């Protein structure tokens, strides 16, 4: 009974925060409420037996998205109140959404309760996958093609951001916050290493570790540390794509190794090597994710030729 009470409270809070975030008059309130919403989501994942997601959500969903939204707010300059909408502008969408909601409720409540065939299949094949944590097995072995594409999505977001992002608004750094961020750095590295290592047999893995590292790097960078961490540095670029490179290299190597078979299978890790391959990919993916996420949050104007046209455009505007 107490658990049910907890659930009701959690769901009520989630809904209230989401609604308040959508309806709030000031944009800054909307963002703050959304960050609180993200933290509660992480709690919800933990409640729903999804610790992997709770870790990822806390780091990515609440932390980084929040930082991103705040950066966007800061860039927008003065915090003006939102334009007020007439009741017609609010009523008709609300009516439409209520109808949609009714339909959705009808749908989700009649989803069958029986589990699909896949969880059993995962458990059955888990031994051959090279890792003992099923989520990692799905991510990096059973459906590794999804993961490769996902790393690509991340890289693409970075490429797009570097193209368009204006120069960041830096506040001057302050001794206390700088030394505190330096103090935190080793702790974060240790924790990220632990998460990465744990991913093979328990919740954790490349994304969580990468996101954590990124959070630490963002704090350091906001305090004018880690000046080498910029896209114009070729080593940074190298490590930003290292996850994908190692992934592709592993795929090709595994494919060549299995060449003895009549029909080589793509993305198939040799069972005896699977463990090491997955670990290797995860290490480099962690680095790549950390660098990419950091650069996404504190995107600086690159001095590389990546966006020559843009800079000329800006100069033309200035002149």
């Amino acid at each position, binding site marked *: 009974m107490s658990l049910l009470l907890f659930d009701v409270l959690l769901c009520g809070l989630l809904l209230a925060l989401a609604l308040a975030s959508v309806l709030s008059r000031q944009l800054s309130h909307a963002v703050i409420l959304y960050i609180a919403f993200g933290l509660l989501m992480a709690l919800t994942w933990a409640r729903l037996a999804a610790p992997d997601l709770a870790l990822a959500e806390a780091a990515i969903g609440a932390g980084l998205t929040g930082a991103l939204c705040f950066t966007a707010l800061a860039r927008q300059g003065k915090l003006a109140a939102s334009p007020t909408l007439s009741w017609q502008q609010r009523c008709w969408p609300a009516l439409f959404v209520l109808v949609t909601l009714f339909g959705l409720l009808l749908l989700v409540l009649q989803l069958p309760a029986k589990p699909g065939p896949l969880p059993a299949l995962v458990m059955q094949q888990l031994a051959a996958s090279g890792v003992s944590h099923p989520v990692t097995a799905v991510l990096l072995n059973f459906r590794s093609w999804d993961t490769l594409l996902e790393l690509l999505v991340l890289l693409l977001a970075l490429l797009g951001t570097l193209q368009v992002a204006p120069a960041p608004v830096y506040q001057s750094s*302050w001794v206390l*916050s700088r030394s*505190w961020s330096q103090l935190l750095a080793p702790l974060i590295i240790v924790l990220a290493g632990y998460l990465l290592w744990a991913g093979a047999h328990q919740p954790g893995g490349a994304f969580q570790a990468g996101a954590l590292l990124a959070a630490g790097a963002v704090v350091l960078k906001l305090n004018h540390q880690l000046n080498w961490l910029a896209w114009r540095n070729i080593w940074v670029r190298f490590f930003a794509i290292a996850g994908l490179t190692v992934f592709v290299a592993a795929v090709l190597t595994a494919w060549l190794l299995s060449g003895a078979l009549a029909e080589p299978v793509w993305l198939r890790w040799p069972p005896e090597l699977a463990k090491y391959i997955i670990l290797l990919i995860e290490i480099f993916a962690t680095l790549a994710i950390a660098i990419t996420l950091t650069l996404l949050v504190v995107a600086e104007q690159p001095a590389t030729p990546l966006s020559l046209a843009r800079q000329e455009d800006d100069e033309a505007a200035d002149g």
Partner: protein
Amino acid sequence: MSVGGELSVISTLLSSALLLTGLLFFIAGSVAMLRFPDSYSRLHAVTKADSLGLGSIIAGLMFYCNWWQNLLMLLIWLLVLASGTVSCQLLARFCKTKQDQA
């Protein structure tokens, strides 16, 4: 962590009292955050009340956990304390500079 059944009556009472105190501080801090007039007093309310609230909640939870978990919780509390202090100072400085500029 469901070893609560083995606790003595006094421990249960003590831990409940601590938990309730912590909750009270949290609620007070949140209400102050919403009601107080300017940034400084809000900062003051939030950081102090929340640090104390978290501390007593952790103290209340310590009755239920083993030493390793207790150590971790203490560490978490310390981290929250320190980062709360730093960010409070940062925000206050920011407010001050803005005020001076205006």
